[in-house]
């Protein structure tokens, strides 16, 4: 295939930004050793554009980031240049760039302030905050600060324990990112002004564990035990607190025993799907004779509204994530791994970068780790504003430089994952459990918690609660216990509803608070733990508006690939708008029946979990409360 480029040319600035990014990517120890040996067995909508080995397509996402960060948008000339450098047809590169919220394909001011107006922030004044911003900076989506800045509303930024939240990005020679939470209109406006005048300092935020991890009795904590106690930039500090002990033990055991213990631990994935981690590893390990490269991916996309636990682990204890990944890689025989982290997590990204750097310097990553003949390295890939890229197969496509559209399963990732090779994908929290299992043994781990939910679990408590934050529990306590630990119901003090598991989860009523927070306990009431979200709403909250925001979330985050979800999510939002306006088509009962029918088709016929769960929370609320009367 010859590339046919249109006439647009990149500016010098754009070329410099891309050249620098490419040079850095190509010299990174992780990527330099990459051998793409895809057999080209393309899923239909993933063109491989000839021999995959000739293309540098898997560098497309970071190169697009580099242009966006330098210039503030991606021009036709810049896209042409990227296409040429990477051997990607421009129509395809455009298809990829236009998939992500963070990339702009039209001129945009360099400073962008995103103010979260999602459900946790709604309980903490996001509505008033946005109204105030409108008064101070003008309407959302319109340039302000002499055309140098723009503010816009955003879905959950993963900062819900400090709601309401905002994120500021400033493109330029020295790009800047700044998180503001809790955010006030004044603090946002002044940061926007600083950014527009080049005065935003380049500093990295230190997690305030007292705010984000409010739990008493710290000594019992396992997953969170180092958060706030350890210097996240120091490998020595990590080792002083027991870090890399588990990796040493794993080396002594050998891969087979590591996998056996992982299976015995009954550890279920914490990313939402609750699949046994050990089984997944075993399936990939079994293909070690096949001569195909294996991959381990840490899923740090964390974009489920109300979820922020992975961010706290990464910001507070980044080496633990690397150690968990390294053990997983040793077990399954992977030489390389990726951490796919959501684009809205600047500090967690920097912490991980520092940690990878330090681990390489001390031979905890790289060749012949610890003198054991085991080679493994990790690359970070930043997402660019697409919830769907947390779905594991969409994540593969995103890393490979394709649109983040999920693939049909089967084949499953353990057979055909990243670059169509056997791949383990685990959530951050899942991986942080791994050293615990190795140090205490699988059987001991399995005894913690309940029969069907072993071990420890992180819960993201937010909304109307006295002490929001991430809480760690051995499985077993009920929703009520957790609320008590978090200081009780906030706001008016009178609880109306709890959202379990995030936007893809379900609502439960105050009558159901004695439900144990276990996989089986929540399943028994038709709910799910999902990503560990426990969001409280007091009786002043207009639940109808919360449901509408959830519907809007799915409408804006569907990848658009399959019909039931692409059209179903917008029809669902339209239907809720009609009900809220008290202007139903026919009667309310007819609308209700229509919603149920749409929900069934979305659940049954959608390709991935997004479409399959897009109605779950809304229906669960309509079942429990008489809304839209």
């Amino acid at each position: 295939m010859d590339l046919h480029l249109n006439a647009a040319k990149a500016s010098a600035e754009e070329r410099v930004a891309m050249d620098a990014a490419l040079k850095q990517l190509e010299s990174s120890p992780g990527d330099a050793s990459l051998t793409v040996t895809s057999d080209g067995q393309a899923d239909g909508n993933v063109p491989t554009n000839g021999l995959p080995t000739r293309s540098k397509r898997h560098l497309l996402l970071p190169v697009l980031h580099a242009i966006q960060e330098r210039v503030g948008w991606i021009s036709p000339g810049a896209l042409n240049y990227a296409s040429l450098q990477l051997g990607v047809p421009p129509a395809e590169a455009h298809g990829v760039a236009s998939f992500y919220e963070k990339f702009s394909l039209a001129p945009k001011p360099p400073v962008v302030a995103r103010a979260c107006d999602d459900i946790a922030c709604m309980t903490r004044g996001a509505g008033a905050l946005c109204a105030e911003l409108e008064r101070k900076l003008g309407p959302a989506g319109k340039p302000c600060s002499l055309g140098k800045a723009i503010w816009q509303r955003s879905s959950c930024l993963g900062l819900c324990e400090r709601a309401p939240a905002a994120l500021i990005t400033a493109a330029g020679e020295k790009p800047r990112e700044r998180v503001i939470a809790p955010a006030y209109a004044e603090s946002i406006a002044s940061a926007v002004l600083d950014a527009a005048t080049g005065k935003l300092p380049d500093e990295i935020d230190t997690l305030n564990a007292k705010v984000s991890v409010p739990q008493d009795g710290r000594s019992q904590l396992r997953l969170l035990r180092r958060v706030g106690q350890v210097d996240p930039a120091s490998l020595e500090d990590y080792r002083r607190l027991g870090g890399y002990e588990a990796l040493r033990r794993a080396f002594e055991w050998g891969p087979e025993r590591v996998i056996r213990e992982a299976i015995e631990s009954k550890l279920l994935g914490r990313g939402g799907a609750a699949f046994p981690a050990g089984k997944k590893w075993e399936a990939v390990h079994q293909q070690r004779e096949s001569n195909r490269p294996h991959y381990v991916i840490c899923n740090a996309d964390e974009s489920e509204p109300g979820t922020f636990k992975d961010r706290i682990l990464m910001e507070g204890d980044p080496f633990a994530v690397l150690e968990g990944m390294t053990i997983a890689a040793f077990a399954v025989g992977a030489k390389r791994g990726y951490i796919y982290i959501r684009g809205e997590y600047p500090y967690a990204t920097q912490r991980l970068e520092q940690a990878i750097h330090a681990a390489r310097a001390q031979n905890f990553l790289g060749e012949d780790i610890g003198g054991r003949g085991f080679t493994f390295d990790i690359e970070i890939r930043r997402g660019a504003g697409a919830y769907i890229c947390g779905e594991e197969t969409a994540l593969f496509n995103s890393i490979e430089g394709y649109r983040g559209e999920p693939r049909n399963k089967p084949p499953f990732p353990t057979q055909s994952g990243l670059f169509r090779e056997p791949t383990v994908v685990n959530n951050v929290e899942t991986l942080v459990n791994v050293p615990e299992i190795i140090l205490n043994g699988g059987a001991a781990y399995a005894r913690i918690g309940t029969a069907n939910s072993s071990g420890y679990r992180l819960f993201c408590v937010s909304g109307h609660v006295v002490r929001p934050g991430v809480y760690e529990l051995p499985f077993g306590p009920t929703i009520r216990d957790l609320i008590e630990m978090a200081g009780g119901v906030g706001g008016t003090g009178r609880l109306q509803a709890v959202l379990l598991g995030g936007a893809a989860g379900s609502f439960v009523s105050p009558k159901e608070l004695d439900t144990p927070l276990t996989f089986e306990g929540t399943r028994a009431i038709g709910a799910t733990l999902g990503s560990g979200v426990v969001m409280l709403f007091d009786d002043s909250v207009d639940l109808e508006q919360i449901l509408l925001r959830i519907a809007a979330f799915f409408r804006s985050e569907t990848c658009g690939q399959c019909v039931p979800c692409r059209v179903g999510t917008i029809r669902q939002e339209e239907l809720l708008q009609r009900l809220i306006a008290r202007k139903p088509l026919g009667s309310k009962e007819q609308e209700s029946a229509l919603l149920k029918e749409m929900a069934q088709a979305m659940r049954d016929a959608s390709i991935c979990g997004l479409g399959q769960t897009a109605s779950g929370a809304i229906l669960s609320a309509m079942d429990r409360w008489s809304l839209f009367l």
Partner: protein
Amino acid sequence: MSEQLQAPSPLIPIPRAPAPEIPVPAARRDVQITIDGKRVTVLEGATILDAAKTLGIETPTLCFLETLTPVNVCRVCVVQVEGSRPLVPACSRKVEEGMVVWTDSERVRLSRRVVLEFLASSVDVSTALQLQAYMKRYEARPEKFGPRAATVVQPPKIDNELYVRDYSKCILCYKCAEACGVDAQNTFAIGVAGRGFHAHIATEFEIPLTDSACVYCGNCIGVCPTGALMGKIEYDMRAAGTWDESRQTRTETICPYCGVGCELTVHSQAGQIVRVSSPLDHSVTQGNLCIKGRFGWQFTQSHK
């Protein structure tokens, strides 16, 4: 090692392993499955769609075409497979020994109907005849979403002499992008862009076709199931109300331009050629042509 085998960049070293041997394909085994209560034996690697066909069961499909890699995105072909929580796409799901499949259960009918209603409520399906037939079969009522339901309506793109892109009629089946890409033409002039309800087929930055990589093979027109892509002559005749397939004849012939031997189907109406296509099952073309075969006949009706 020859020049060509040198890695193009340090990034992707060519594996040092010896050149792979061409594997001798293992004999394909028989697989027995049950569809709607009837047993059927098909070869390993067959899809549920293939198996259903051998039983004479007609499965609706929109994004599937024999000559293209299945993208399984339209979901109109879904069937119920025992043991699977969601329904599965018949067009791409391979049979497995002992599979029990239902193609006409309540759940299957509901999903197929709702998918058709979703499409017809958001897209102009006036020239999508196959889709209309499915709507009848499943008693789809797209008007149930009300008059204000969002649609993809937009002005047609008429930027060249040969064909029109009217994306108000596009159901986003991905077929044209596949035909333009690896599945046939390898030109990559068009791809899927945007996200969600606004995902659509586009050239880069929506530039006109004439500035894009398009080579006017028209293979995208050949695979489009809705009339969103249409030859200019047909488009103009439809606009003028003179297009009438009942008055058209089809003549099979071989393209006179080069030695490849592509089979052409020449559609004419009132002594004028109005469209040229090629049969999907022709061993040479698989339905694909080049600009000469597909459009290079206009001199036959030049009046200048």
